[in-house]
Structure formats: C-alpha cells, structure tokens
C-alpha cells in the first residue's frame, strides 16, 4: 500500500521518537504574531536559550492592529505594548518582521502564502489555530499554543502525537452561488465540530481540485473548526503556478529540484487512509450558521432545526432565534467581510462583483477588511475599494479585525453580524451578547444590501 501526503511529510520531518509514544517533529516554517509570541520569547530568555533557526521564523502583526488609524503609538496602550514586544523580540533575535511599513503586513495566514513561504511538503507551525490554512498547498500546518511556540523557537521542533488521516472527498460541480466557504460549513455540519479529533483531514475529490488556491485555503482554514488538527490538499499544477515568482518561492535550478520534491510528497494513488468520507457537491447550497458553533449551520432555504438537545436550546436562547423558523429574513446589524477565512483578493472580487451599483441597507454598518497589504493594494488597483465605498462599506486597513475583535472593531450589545469569518462562538466579535452568522462573501454582500439574511442567488439573480 502507498502512503498519503501526511505520512510522507511526517516521516521526512521526524527527529526522534519520544518517551510515551510522541514524535519530535521538525518545523520547517515558524510563523509568529504579536498575541501568542511575547510570553514565549520571555520564557526562552528566562531559560537562557536562543532562537534556534531565526531564518525559519517570520513575523507579522494582525490580531490587535487597528484597521482605521494605524498611527503609532496605537490608541490602545495594551495593543501598543504587544506591538513593541514583537518589534523588540524579532529585532533581538534576527527574525524577519513584516510590519506595516514593510508593505507585506497582514493576517499571518494570508501573508505566508502570498510571500511564497508556504510551500508543498513543508511543516508549518504558528501560535494560531487557523494555521491549517497553509495545508491548501500540501503543507502540514499546526496551530499551537504559547508553550509550543516556545518549543519551536528554542528547538525548531515540537512534541506531537501521530494523527490518523481521514480523506474527505467532495465530488461534482458546485451550483451557482455556492463557494468554498459553503463546502466547509457543510462538511463541519455533517462531520461535527469534534468529528475530526485525532485526525488530519485530506480534502480531495473533483470539487476540491477545481477550487482556486484561495478556495482551498478557505476550506483548509476551517478544518480546525471541525476538530481536525490539520487539513490539507494535495499540491498540483495550480499550486505550483500560484507559487511561481513569489518572494520566497524557489527560483531557477532550485525550482526544478523543489518541483520534483513537491511531486514526490503527494498522496500515492493506492495510499491508505484511516477513514474515507464522500460528499456530493450538488447537495450543497449556500450555508449560514444559526447557532454558537460552526456545526450549527443550515442551507439558506432550510428551516432552523427542531431538537430538544440542550446545546441547541442554549444556542437558540443566545441567538434569539426560533426553532422551525426560516433563517432567511433574519434582520442583521453589521456585515464583516474579511479574516483569514475570506479576506483574500478572490473574496473581495466576488463581493464587489455583486455590490457594484448597489447600496448597503441604511441600518447596516458594513466593513470590508482586506487580509493583507498586498490584497489591499491589488484590490485598489482593480478599483474594488471604490465599489465597496460607493455601496456604503467602510474600506479598512488589513488585520484580523472583527473576526475576533481584539482591535477596536467590535459588535455592540446583541447586534447580529453577517460575517465571512470562521467562528460564531458566544461573544466572539467583541460584545458578550453579540451574535455572529457565518457565511460566504457573496452571502454577506446579499445580507448587506437587503439588511437581512438573504439568499445571494435570489438577490443577485444567480443561476
């Protein structure tokens, strides 16, 4: 039997078997940001250790950075302190830092791929759970906690339990108005928020293969929301084409050498899996969440489920929604288009395409937050910023923004947000009673225009 990509990449990066059955795994690329690294730098300093491989470590700032006024010092003194700590730590340790002046700052999971740092067959770690995003390139990418950030800084390795591999296959053609975001929300609804515990998800099948790199990133990004530790897609021509010419992508002779490495780590045709599940793309319609975890989602034309399960009851109470009612027509207050899930150029293009010549409903506050400086520049060169602004959106600077509201972009009271982000947890968007409904950028654009949860296919006449 052949091997799958996960097993191959794991074996190449294995340093040692640790007592108790864990593996010491080498991390080829370590990405850091301001929220989860300062404590880790303090820990290694205290132990008298140094960063083992500063040239395999890259930093940017995303979580706390304001998206309106980025003049220093930041208005929020804690944010300023975190930013200064990152500047100091990267400087002292010889780590490349992509700050706002570099022209490359942005959400870490958007910046890595844009710079060509994210490549097939590598291992990636970052102190952020959405690190699985990098798996879209055929990398094995782990979201880690601060003690592990410390481990990777000090040794470029970490201790891990081996994972089982589940092949999650989606086949067939997506219907108009259905996107990568709908696929992953659909998969999580069916596999559960904890269905992936102990697994790596290999996303495969013709639907996944036909997605753009951006779409694959959206799918892998939310693997963690399904409980999987990592998610990945086998690399192909599309992957290689995306990488070509990127700042840190291999060049010249090295490109050919790396190409053969990238080909070699693909899952073998006869690869073994611990589990295989198969879905049909035609069964997927635009998805929205109605509850307080990403599994609690429905197709836009469905009615909200009736179930006396206590977690449903809790979700309905918090969301102030009624079992059995349609989700369509739910009034919204805020629209957020952005985040590491849907803050890439393709997402902005898709939303702008539909927003052109339309107006945001008068009671709605709408935010468009490009995922990175590069995305922002590209969008502005294409005139997307003007479309958003003319429609009534606020056009902001790059950052995580209202995905987790660690910067000033927050919901107020029990506002409902139609959001392209990845988590609809209680209080996630900055207000302890704020409500989040997850969806694709096209669906968020539709909600912005009508002021309520709507079917983008009807609003924009897609068929």
């Amino acid at each position, binding site marked *: 039997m052949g091997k799958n990509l996960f097993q191959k990449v794991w074996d190449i*990066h*294995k*340093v*040692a078997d*640790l*007592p*108790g059955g*864990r593996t*010491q795994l*080498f991390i*080829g690329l370590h990405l850091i940001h301001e*929220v989860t690294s300062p*404590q880790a730098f*303090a820990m290694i300093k205290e*132990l008298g*250790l140094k960063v083992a491989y500063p*040239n*395999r470590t890259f930093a940017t700032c995303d979580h*706390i950075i304001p998206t309106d006024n980025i003049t220093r010092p930041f208005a929020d003194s*804690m*944010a300023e302190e*975190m930013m200064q*700590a990152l500047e100091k730590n990267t400087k002292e340790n010889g780590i490349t830092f992509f700050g706002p002046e570099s022209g490359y700052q942005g959400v870490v999971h958007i910046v890595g791929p844009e710079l060509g740092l994210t*490549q097939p*067959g*590598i291992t990636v770690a970052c102190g*952020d*759970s959405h*690190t699985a995003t990098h798996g879209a390139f055929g990398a094995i990418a782990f979201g*880690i*906690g*601060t*003690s592990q950030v410390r481990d990777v800084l*000090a*040794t*470029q*390795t*970490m*201790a891990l*339990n081996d994972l089982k591999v589940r092949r999650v296959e989606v086949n067939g053609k997506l219907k108009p108005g259905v996107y990568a975001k709908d696929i992953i929300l659909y998969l999580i609804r069916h596999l559960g*928020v*904890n269905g992936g*515990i102990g697994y790596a998800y290999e996303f495969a099948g013709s639907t996944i293969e036909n997605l753009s790199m951006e779409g694959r990133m959206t799918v892998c990004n939310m693997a*963690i929301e399904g*409980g999987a*530790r990592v998610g990945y897609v086998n690399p192909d021509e599309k992957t290689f084409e995306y990488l070509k010419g990127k700042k840190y992508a291999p060049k010249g002779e090295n490109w050919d050498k790396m190409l053969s*490495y990238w080909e070699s780590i693909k899952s073998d045709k006869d690869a073994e899996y611990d589990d295989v599940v198969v879905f049909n793309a035609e069964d997927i319609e635009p998805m929205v969440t109605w509850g307080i975890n990403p599994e609690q989602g429905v197709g836009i034309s469905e009615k909200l489920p009736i179930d006396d399960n206590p977690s449903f009851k*809790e979700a309905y109470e918090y969301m102030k929604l009624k079992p059995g009612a349609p989700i369509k027509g739910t009034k919204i207050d805020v629209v957020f288009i952005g985040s590491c899930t849907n803050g890439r150029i393709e997402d902005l293009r898709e939303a702008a395409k539909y927003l052109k010549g339309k107006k945001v409903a008068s009671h709605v506050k709408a935010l468009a937050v490009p995922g990175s400086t590069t995305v922002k520049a590209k969008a502005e060169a294409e005139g997307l910023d003007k479309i958003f602004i003319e429609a009534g959106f606020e056009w902001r600077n790059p950052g995580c923004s209202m995905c*987790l*509201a*660690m910067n000033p972009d927050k919901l107020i*009271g029990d506002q409902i947000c139609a959001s392209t982000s990845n*988590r609809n*947890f*209680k*209080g*996630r968007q*900055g*207000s*302890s009673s704020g409500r989040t409904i997850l969806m694709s950028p096209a669906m968020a654009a539709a909600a912005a225009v009508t002021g309520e949860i709507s079917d983008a296919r009807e609003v924009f006449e897609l068929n």
Partner: protein
Amino acid sequence: MSIKPINRVIGKAVPILGDDIDTDRIIPARYLKCVTFDGIGEFAFYDERFDSEGKPKKHPLNDNRFKDASIIIAGNNFGCGSSREHAPQSIKRAGFNAIIAESFAEIFYGNSTTLGLVCVTLPKTEIEELAKTVDANPNIQIEIDIEREVIRAGEKVYNCGIKPSTKKSFLDGEYDSLGVLLKNMDKVKEVEKNLPYSFA
C-alpha cells in the same frame, strides 16, 4: 529542566457542564491583550460569570459552595476553538489542577497537559453522576489517580481515560516537552541539514 512528576490530583470539584465550551468562553478575547500570563486567572469564564455591567450571573464559579474547587467537571469537546494557551493558562491560574471531561478539543488538551493541568475523560453517564455527587456534596474530595487511571469520589471508583503518552509524561515529570526536545538537538541539526528547503 527537571519538573516534579504528577501522580495524582486531589481536591474539591466544580461542575461546569455543557458541550463545546470554547476558548472564547473560557477567556474572552478582550483579556488576551497581555505580554505575560500573570493575572489572567481572574478573567477565566468572565462573560459566563458576569453580565455586561459586571454583575454576577448564575454560574457554578459564582456559587460559594464551589469556591475552593481545584478540579473542573466538564462536558463534551471542552476547550474547542482557539489554539491560544491563554485558555488553559487562565484556568490554571484561577487555581485549577485538573479537568475531568467527556472529551477535550485536541489543541486545548495538549496546551493544558504541557502546563501540568491534568486532563482525563469519563463517559457521559459517569460525568453526569459525578457532577450530581459533587452538587449534593460540594466538600467531597475527588482523587484522580493517574497511574491507575481511576477517579475516586467517596466510595465510588471510576475508570478514566488518559492518553498513554500524556500519562507517562506526568509520571516521569516530563510533561513540559522542552527539556525532552532539547536533548535531541544534534538530531535536529541533522534533519534540518537534509531538508530540501530553506528560506534564505
């Protein structure tokens, strides 16, 4: 880097039941703005415990009967969501030494056990029974015996689950992985040298 082995945890418990208690509920994002973890304990479960005006809500952690608890009894998929270590750090710094749950989210489990926060699992019916016992008698001493993989509550003994590697790391005092990793730096260099890629 020698740390003390952990063979058992003994203490009073508090049930914080419900499934899918996520990291944002354990520690709301607005309390993550810190460059150290000091003082983060007081914000554990903050929005669950207090309303937007800071008034206490009905929550087990606001219940005086459980104020000395050092063990949390929880439901399914506890700690799902973020990889931020702030969540287990806040629980540990709020004075807890162990969590007994039906199941744990993967990253949260690893983050917690690295800190020496013991995480063990019990089936749903036993979680419910244990929670009832504790609710009826908040002063009962709960003992988690890691070596034997059992939980003792009065006369009652439950078989609990723990990953073999985690169990060993507690018993050997090697749950903080850094010490073990540092021993292999020669091998690390070897693997790095043979990797086909770099970013120089």
